[in-house]
């Protein structure tokens, strides 16, 4: 092929009409060869050497067929596409979100609920009500070979499986169980079901956790659910107030009753002691009286009178034979007042 230095390109004869290729700069043949070899060596090196990061393993395929799995570290393989490496992060904990999407993770993560996420979270409960369930699945690739070669489009399939598992479990619980009392059980049952599906499908994934996030009644129904909570609070409050009343009144009544009993005991003691005292006094007196009844009786009478008469108000002394006094007595107003 004739060449002209820096002038014109080679002449090619096509169908008898010659035309000229654009001029090609002439290079020394040695440099060209050197460049080609250098390029070949570079490609050789680039396609031979590979590095597997600590959380990964490298799956090597030779002409498409699986040959080996390499652990983290620097490795060599056959070059030029004879062997290809696919790196699978087997140590990394992976996470999938359902019913919401983390827009920006951080100390205060931002979340959003695009329409397709809302569709994921809306589900029927076992009592034919509707709940909105958001959840996350944390998982790890356990078997890199199975992960790569058994199922196509693993993420999509895994989403389907997760939705099916959670819906199946939620479908067997009432809306109240889903929202309040059954959450932990549901998460656990869904995790087991999902793991069962993973094993069944040979997808090479190990579920580490399935956690229910926000679980709510649908928005239009939510006020009614809140009303129930309020009503329950009201009920508790009413009952507590009634008990407070009770606790205020009953112990007091018991105390007052006790007071009554104590007072009665006091009365009983007093009554008995007085009786004993009176009896004792009478008996002593009687002992002496018995020795000289007539004299004692008279003495007592006179003593009493001498004590009593001076303390009295009006004293009227009447002689049986002088009856004229009586009418005079009637004129006295005070007498009339006291003894009408």
């Amino acid at each position: 092929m004739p060449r002209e230095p820096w002038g014109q390109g080679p002449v090619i004869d096509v169908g008898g009409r010659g035309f000229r290729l654009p001029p090609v700069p002439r290079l020394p043949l040695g440099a060209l060869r050197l460049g080609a070899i250098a390029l070949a060596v570079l490609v050789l090196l680039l396609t031979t050497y590979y590095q597997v990061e600590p959380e990964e393993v490298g799956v090597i395929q030779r002409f498409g067929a699986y040959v080996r799995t390499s652990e983290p570290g620097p490795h060599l393989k056959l070059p030029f596409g004879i062997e290809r490496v696919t790196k699978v992060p087997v140590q990394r904990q992976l996470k999938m979100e359902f019913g919401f999407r983390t827009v920006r993770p951080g100390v205060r993560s931002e979340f959003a609920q695009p329409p397709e996420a809302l569709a994921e979270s809306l589900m029927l409960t076992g009592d034919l009500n509707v709940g909105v369930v958001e959840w996350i699945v944390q998982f790890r690739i356990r078997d890199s070979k199975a992960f790569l070669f058994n199922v196509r489009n693993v993420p999509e399939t895994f989403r389907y499986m997760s939705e099916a598992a959670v819906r199946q479990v939620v479908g067997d619980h009432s809306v109240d169980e889903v929202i309040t009392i059954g959450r932990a059980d549901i998460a656990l049952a869904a995790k087991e079901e999902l793991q069962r599906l993973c094993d069944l499908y040979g997808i090479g994934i190990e579920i580490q956790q399935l956690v229910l996030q926000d679980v709510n009644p649908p928005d239009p129904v939510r006020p009614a659910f809140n009303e129930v909570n309020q009503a329950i609070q009201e009920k508790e409050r009413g009952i507590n107030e009634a008990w407070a009343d009770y606790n205020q009144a009953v112990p007091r009544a018991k105390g007052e009753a006790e007071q009554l009993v104590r007072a009665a005991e006091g009365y009983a003691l007093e009554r008995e002691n007085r009786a004993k005292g009176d009896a004792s006094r009478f008996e002593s007196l009687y002992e002496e009286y018995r020795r000289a009844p007539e004299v004692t009786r008279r003495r007592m009478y006179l003593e009493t009178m001498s004590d009593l008469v001076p303390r009295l108000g009006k004293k009227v002394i009447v002689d049986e034979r002088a009856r004229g006094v009586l009418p005079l007595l009637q004129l006295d107003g005070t007498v009339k007042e006291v003894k009408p």
Partner: protein
Amino acid sequence: MTRIMTIILGLLAATLLLSSVYTVSETEQAIITQFGKPVGGVIATPGLHVKLPVIQTVHRFEKRWLEFDGDANEIPTRDKKYIWADTYARWRIADTLRFYQAVRDERGGQSRLDDIVDGETRNAVASFDLIEIVRSSNRAFAITGELEGIGAAEATAKIFAGRDKIAQQILGRASKITPEFGVELVDVRFKRINYTESVQQAVFQRMIAERKRIAERSRSEGQGRAAEIRGQKERDVLAATSVGYKSAQELKGKADARATAIYARAYGRDPGFYEFFKSMETLQTALDKDATVILSTDSELLKYLKDPSGR
């Protein structure tokens, strides 16, 4: 010119060589056609393979399990509730040759699956009550006291089939057809079941009404319980007071009785003297300065007033 010829020949030889080898990946299987006619069997072993150059063509197919996402169908259940039923399935190309002949490629396969799985889903859903499709067992719901006795009537319905069995039924019927085009269908599951918009609104209304009932009952239960406690309070207060009164009266009565016995024993020794003694005592306290006495000179006290001899 010979040099150009050499290059051309070399290129040709390389092309021939390259077109006589092909690779099959771990995830693939292939069939070879010669002038459009399949020759040989299915090549399922991954790795490097040889074929006749130019005249034989390689057709690669997926060997892995493939996903299938059914269309969400608006279907009435047997109890006439309109729902969206969305299924997914798992399938693979089992008989590659037949698959190639029947549907040519994956898109064709998906489209046949659409027809079959969606159709069977429709049939199955329409022949069961909604509750059968939603629930999978007869487990009893756990309920808190507030919810006792309130809840959808369906909550107590007996499940005969359940979600899993219905999915199995769809799978059973669909997987009988799919071998016709070389497809093995191993799994059909309900991904989503939702009410259609109008039914959903009705369900929301029902849920609201149900909650209101629960709230109402909770309130009135609270009032009832409070009234009961207040009644209990009345009762306990009266009980305490009256028991106290009763004990007090008993104590007093017994004390009175004992006192009476003591008095009777003492005074019974001489009732006449007691009468006198008590009279004297009473006179001492019963009369005061406001009393007026009329004393006869015949009385014991004054009999000496008139006459020292006392007559």
